[in-house]
Structure formats: C-alpha cells, structure tokens
C-alpha cells in the first residue's frame, strides 16, 4: 500500500471545493434515493450529464456522495413506508417498518444510518487493505458457484416464516414462477408473456416489492385508519439510542461488514443476498428469534450494515479488474469514463492518485452521509405523523410514480395493482411475503447459472462437484436446512422431558 498516495487522495478530497461537492452529492443522492422508484442507478445516471467538464476528482467525489446517499435514501422509504425501492433494502423493512410503526421511527432511521456508516466505512478499509487480493474471488465465481450461492440464499426461506412451512414453500414456488416470466436468456424463448413485449424483460423487482409490501400495507392502514397515528407523537423523531442499544448493534455491525464486503465483491446479486443472509444469520444467532420481524434492533442493523458493506465490496472488481459487478457499478463505470478515468487492472499502477482519490472520496461520502442525515432524521420521521388518510393516499401515489419512473408504461401499473391485491390476500390467509420476494429475486439467477453450467459442461452434472467453493456452499446449504430441524427436534424432546419431570414432581 502506498501511503503517500492515500494522503494525496485525502488532500484532494478534503479541499474546500470538493467538500462542497461531497455535500451536494450526498444531499442529492439522499433526496433522489427517497423519491419513488429512483435508486442509485438512476441517481448516478441522472448526475452523469452534470459532470461533463468537471474536474475528475470533484466529479468522483460528487458521484460517491450520490451513490451512498441514494443507498441510504432507499432504506428510508423501506423503514418509513414499507416500500423498499431497491432489492438490497427489502430485509431492512422486516424490522425497520415495525419499529417505525411502534412510534420509534427516528430510532429506526438512526440505527440504519449508523449501521450504514459503520458498514460502509469498515468495508472501505477492507477495500484499501485487501482489494488486490480478493479481486480474484470475483472471477473464481462461475456458474456453479453462483448456483450454489443462490441455493444457500433460498434455504433461508424456512427461517423467514414464523407460521406454516408449507405456506412459506408455496409462496416461494409462486415467487419462482413469477421470475420465469419474460424472455429466457439462454434460449431467447419468450415465457408466459402472451405476446406482450412489455413482459419480455420480465416483471421488475420494484413492482413486486411495492405491491406485496407497500400496497398490501396500505390496505392494512386503511382498515386501521381511524386509530390514532402514534401514541407518542412527540417521540417519533427522537433518535437517541441508549448505550445498551448501541452495544447491541456492535455484534451485527462487526459480523456483517465482513460478510457484506465479501458477498459484495461477487458480481451479481451481492447487496441483496448479503442483506438477506445477514438478516437470517442474525436471527439464527439470536437467543430470542421470535422478536425478529417485530422491530428488533439487530434486525435493522444487520441488513443495513451488510448492504452498505456490499456496496464498497462491489468497487473491488470495478476498480481492480474493470468489471462492473452490478447495475449500479456499471452506471458508475460510465460516470468514471465521462470524467476520463478508465477503471481496470492498470488503474492502481497507472493512476494511483485517482484510485486512492476514489477511495478517499468514499470515506468522505460516508462521513458526510452520517453528518447530514442524523439531523435530518427527526424531520423525515415526522412523515409518519401526517394524518393517516392523507398518508395512505400519498403512499399510493408514491408507489405509482415509482413504478412509472422505472417502466414508463401504465401496463406495469396495472400489474402493480394486481400484486397489491395479491399481497393483501396473502396477509389475510397468512402466506408470508418474504419467501415470495426472496425466491423471486434469486430464482432467475439460479436458473440461468444452472443452465450456463450445464451448457459449458455439455450436459454433465459432474461440473457441480469439481469446485471446492461450490461443494462448500452445498454443504453449508444442507447444514442450514437440517441443523434447525435437528436442533428443533432435540429442543422439543428436551421440553417434553422437562414437562414430564415437572409433571412428576407436581
């Protein structure tokens, strides 16, 4: 590592002009990220034309700010409105939204902001220290490894449902079915599109998420519209965390900044898988898993840490290999090209100043995010104090604009309405939505990876047993299915024995 370059990077990033750009970037990113349907991808795409003719360093700092801001802005709508705009924030809504509903919106947002900051900052340190070494990880992952990883993600379904396992499985299968709609990538065959070109690219994540989560929740809010908003109105914006609560966040933050970073390095569904796996592993580690889904602090800290850590992880293949691993980094690559920076294997060697400048600007972007957002939180949280009847109407419009800003067609809005109805019915009959969305997100990639592997191997299944990583991931998947079953069995047995003993002594 080259300390003088890092110092230089910071020097550049810390010049007064650039600090202003960092500030503007973070603010713009947060605001755009909060707008319906606009995630980091659109935020950066929108900012690109603005950076023509800007000094490269300033443009980079602006973009880093926009990027982090948009990621955080997305969590806000997930927590406040149960409307996850980006797949990486779905898991945040599981505990974030219930906590906000308990009148602790400020607290939930503060936990998200702090965990995002910690996850982001810790993983940027990793990025500095180990980027060249983990770069290879990105390319060792081929179709078989991805298949195994997605499988591991799917095993999480069992722990995402508290009720009936069979209902969770049905939800997941239907989610997979929805994922098969559209043009199949390996053959170009249109599946279940009924000749409609609007369905060729499949159903967008946002439509499913806003329908199943946000619109279904709107129905519940309508039923409860006459209840008082929140009992302690004045407390909504309070973001003070007790020492104990901060301590509670320590564990998830340290664990998941590592996990998130590593998964983020893998091109593909990094942040999403990272946030789900973090949420689930935290739930499994917990002594009181039943408190998850009801506003558990760790349930917010874990996914928020890891989706932000994955964000930095995604920079590894971009900066060291020139491979954009996600939609967002692909747009970011475009943004870098505009300002005359070509990321790639030679970047560190040819332009160490730019490389470290990017990293320094990521630090600064993260820091600004925290500084800017903590004071904003009380205001944001007050959104929930808007009278219910108005809030309901605004959330509906919010979802509709969101989907329109992605699909630009009313056809998809009708589908959104359909998913809203489906989501409501699923709640009425206790079918969980989480396995549905998880299967929907992972399903497409899992199928494609499997078939890519089979094409390359000419149809031989042996290919799945030739890589150590693949085998290891299979084993972990098996463990994650069977360990809970077995331990559950023993627990029940122990409880039964206990009861018996009690019965006898009584």
């Amino acid at each position, binding site marked *: 590592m080259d300390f003088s370059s890092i110092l230089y990077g910071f020097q550049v990033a810390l010049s007064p002009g650039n600090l202003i750009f960092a500030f503007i970037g973070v603010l713009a990113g947060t605001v*755009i990220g909060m*707008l319906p349907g*606009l995630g980091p991808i*659109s935020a950066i795409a*929108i900012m690109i*034309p603005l950076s023509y003719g800007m000094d490269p360093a300033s443009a980079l700092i602006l973009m880093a700010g926009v990027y982090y801001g948009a990621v955080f802005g997305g969590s806000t709508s997930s927590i406040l409105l149960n409307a996850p705009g980006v797949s990486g924030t779905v898991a945040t809504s599981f505990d974030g939204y219930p906590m906000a509903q308990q009148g602790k919106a400020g607290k939930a947002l503060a936990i998200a902001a702090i965990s995002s900051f910690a996850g982001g900052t810790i993983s940027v340190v990793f990025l500095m220290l180990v980027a060249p070494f983990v770069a290879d990880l990105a390319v060792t992952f081929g179709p078989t490894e991805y298949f195994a990883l997605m499988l591991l993600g799917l095993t999480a379904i069992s722990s995402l449902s508290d009720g009936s396992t*069979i*209902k969770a*499985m*049905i939800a997941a*299968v*239907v989610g*997979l*079915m929805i994922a*098969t709609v559209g043009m*199949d990538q*390996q*053959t*170009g*065959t249109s*599946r*279940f599109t009924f000749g409609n070109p609007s369905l060729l690219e499949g159903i967008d994540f946002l439509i499913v998420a806003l329908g199943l989560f946000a619109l279904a929740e*709107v*129905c519940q809010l*309508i*039923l409860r*519209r*006459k209840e008082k908003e929140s009992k302690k109105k004045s407390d909504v914006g309070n973001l003070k965390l007790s020492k104990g609560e901060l301590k509670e966040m320590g564990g998830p933050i340290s664990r998941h900044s590592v996990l998130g970073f590593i998964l983020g390095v893998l091109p593909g569904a990094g942040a999403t898988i990272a946030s789900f796996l973090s949420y689930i592993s935290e739930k499994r580690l917990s002594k009181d898993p039943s408190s998850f889904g009801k506003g558990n602090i760790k349930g917010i800290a874990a996914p928020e840490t890891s989706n932000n850590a994955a964000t930095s992880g995604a920079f590894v293949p971009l900066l060291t290999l020139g491979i954009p691993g996600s939609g967002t980094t692909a747009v970011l690559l475009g943004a870098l090209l505009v300002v005359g920076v070509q990321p790639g294997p030679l970047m560190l060697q040819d332009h160490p100043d730019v490389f470290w400048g990017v990293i320094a600007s990521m630090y600064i972007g993260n820091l600004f995010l925290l500084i800017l957002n903590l004071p904003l939180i009380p205001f944001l949280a007050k959104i929930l104090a808007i*009278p*219910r*009847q*108005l809030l*309901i*109407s*605004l959330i*509906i*419009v919010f979802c*509709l*604009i969101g989907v*329109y*800003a992605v699909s630009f067609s*009313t056809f998809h*809005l*009708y589908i959104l*309405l359909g998913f*809203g*109805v489906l989501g*409501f019915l699923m709640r*009425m*009959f*206790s079918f969980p939505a989480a396995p549905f969305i998880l299967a929907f997100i992972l399903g497409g990639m899992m*199928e494609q990876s*499997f*078939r890519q592997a*089979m*094409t390359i191997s*000419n*149809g031989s299944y042996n290919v799945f047993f030739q890589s150590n990583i693949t085998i290891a991931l299979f084993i972990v998947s098996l463990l994650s299915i069977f360990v809970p079953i077995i331990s559950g069995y023993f627990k029940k047995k122990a409880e039964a024995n206990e009861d018996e003993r009690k019965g006898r002594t009584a």
Partner: protein
Amino acid sequence: MANKPSRWIALLLLAIAGVYLVLAYQLPEFPYAIIDSDVLPKGLGFLLIILSVVLFATAKEETAEEKEKRTIPKNDLVILLITAVAIFIYISLLEVLGFLLTTILFLLFLPTVLGYRKYGVTVAVAFIFSGVMYYSFTYLLNITLPQGIMPF
C-alpha cells in the same frame, strides 16, 4: 370444508398450477439447448401441485384468532374496493389526462373518501405534492412523466 379456508386456497393453487403447466408445455423447443427453457417451469408446476395437495391434506380448522384477522367489516370492505377502483381509474387516465391533473384529482378524492375532513389541507396537499413531483421529475431530473392534455 367451511371452517378450513386452506382447502379452498389449495384448490385454487391447484388450478393455477394446472394452467401454468399447460402453458409450460406449449413453450417452443430451442434446437441447441442442453436444458431448455421449459424444464424449470414444468418442475415448478408439478411442485406446486404437490404442495397444494399437502396443504389440502394438512388443512386445520381455523383458530378464532385467524378468523378474526380475516373478518373485515362491510364498511371497510367497501372502502377498500373504492380505493382499488380509484387506483384503477387513476392508471387508466394517467397517460390521457397527464400526471399532474390525474394526481391532483386522485389526491382530492381519496383522502375525502377515507374520511379526512380538513378540506383546505387536502386541496393544498393535492396541488403542491403533485406539482412538486411533476416539476422535479420532468424538469429537474429529466425523467419525463406523462404530460397529457396539460400544456406543460
């Protein structure tokens, strides 16, 4: 059967699985694929059939709690339906009347139906929210929302 709504759902799922399978069997063959595009859909169709059968067989009588969760007062049901229809009309008019006009109308209508009585606030919110959203998307962010019959 009356007390076991899961059985009705199982039958419905069975029907969905059937339709899905019929469509899956109609997928055209791709000459060069080792695993063709119909393999996963067929598998999912059969899996859903098995799961619905299991759901049907294991259906238990609904607990009082579950039943209560499902009971919606008639009044509320009407409101839910009105909301859904309002959204439907909103979508149908969006590209005809334009974002601005449709959204203003929607935001005037829905809060009132839901029982919000401060009309002044409703009007202000409808106009300002729609205006701010339209202006920021179309003019500031260059993401064009439908203009419709409005001149801007």
